[in-house]
């Protein structure tokens, strides 16, 4: 691929998704776009770019979707989810006892595993959240990924990466070689196509936001913009989870680290986390 063609595709990705593609990641371009070349029965990547330049709208969407990372897993990294279970959910239950209303956003939900993980934890808390109205929303730019999330059907590798077998037994049913999430969990969550570059305010406000392993794909300016938008969506005592290898410190002053090694952040208030923050062990 010529440097000019590479720059064209990189610009398209940045504009449509915020995804940054540097020259050292050109192998990603080939890995992820060759299946599109084959599916469209094109000669090579050059022809694909030529058609993109020609303005094929549908093809642009397909190419952007193919380049998006959909890497996710149940209880990914495990320990942040243990923090959720042991600290945040009990705090949240105490803080919202009056309203009995809980809202969760998973930004960059991909095929749904992390949002379902949280839904399993809420369900397994048993009577703690019985009678509560739980609104768990997953957003992503990729419609194929959202379709998979909605189907809630996972293969044997996917259900083994991070998912304790007792949870598999409680929340899934085997269908031939795959495992399907229970109807109860399926109804607890909803998925919407949404671009993080756009206004997020119509989604409403949330108690917990998961935005894990998403920011790493953006440049500093886009990270800052997304974090500012997310901070406005969180309640003052809400919690943000980013990936364990990502950091918010030095990018946005809207959040204060609580356990940065686990990617846990509270909303900023006078240089400290709000003392009511649900991220803190009280």
């Amino acid at each position, binding site marked *: 691929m010529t440097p000019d063609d590479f720059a064209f595709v990189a610009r398209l990705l940045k504009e449509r998704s915020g995804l940054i593609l540097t020259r050292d990641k050109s192998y990603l371009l080939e890995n992820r776009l060759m299946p599109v070349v084959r599916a469209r029965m094109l000669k090579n990547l050059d022809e694909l770019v030529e058609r993109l330049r020609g303005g094929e709208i549908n093809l642009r969407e397909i190419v952007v979707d193919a380049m998006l990372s959909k890497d996710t*897993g149940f209880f990914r990294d495990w320990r942040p989810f243990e923090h959720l279970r042991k600290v945040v959910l009990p705090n949240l239950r105490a803080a919202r006892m009056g309203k009995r209303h809980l809202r969760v956003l998973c930004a960059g939900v991909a095929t749904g595993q992390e949002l379902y993980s949280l839904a399993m934890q809420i369900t397994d808390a048993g009577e703690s959240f019985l009678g509560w109205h739980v609104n768990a929303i997953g957003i992503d730019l990729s419609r194929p990924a959202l379709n998979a999330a909605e189907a809630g059907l996972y293969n044997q590798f996917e259900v083994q990466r991070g998912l304790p*077998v007792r949870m598999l*037994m409680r929340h899934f049913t085997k269908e031939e070689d795959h495992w399907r999430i229970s109807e109860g969990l399926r109804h607890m969550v909803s998925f919407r196509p949404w671009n993080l570059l756009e206004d997020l305010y119509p989604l409403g406000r949330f108690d917990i936001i998961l935005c894990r392993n998403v920011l790493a794909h953006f440049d500093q300016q886009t990270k800052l913009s997304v974090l500012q938008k997310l901070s406005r969506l969180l309640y003052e005592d809400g919690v943000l989870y980013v990936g364990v290898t990502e950091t918010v410190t030095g990018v946005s002053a809207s959040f204060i680290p609580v356990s940065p090694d686990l990617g846990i952040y509270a909303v900023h208030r006078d240089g400290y986390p709000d003392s009511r923050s649900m991220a803190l062990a009280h």
Partner: protein
Amino acid sequence: MKRCLIIDDSRVIRRVAAKIIQDLGFTVEEAENGKKALDACRVRMPDVALIDLDMPVMDGMSFLRALRQTPGGDKVVTMICTADSGAMQIEQALKDGADEYIMKPFDSEIIHSKLLLLDLL
């Protein structure tokens, strides 16, 4: 350093699992059936055991039940590792005292994530 006992009648499976688990910082011991594994446990209990089900001499479930009756055997973290992915088989293994269940084929990511959630990493 934590110790892992890999029990499988397939030398290839033992070798693949041993490489993955050693890379995660464990010392590894191997046994080709449940009886040899039980003998090894009576000498020294491992921290974790990866247990195939279908083996000659003594199968995995018989080993698991015998292990749980052996002094100190109740503290060993046990992971069944088998090609049988039926829900009934999994339920039975959990009822008989297994802590986790891995369906073959497995990869390093699966083993890593299971050891992490069992608090062994």
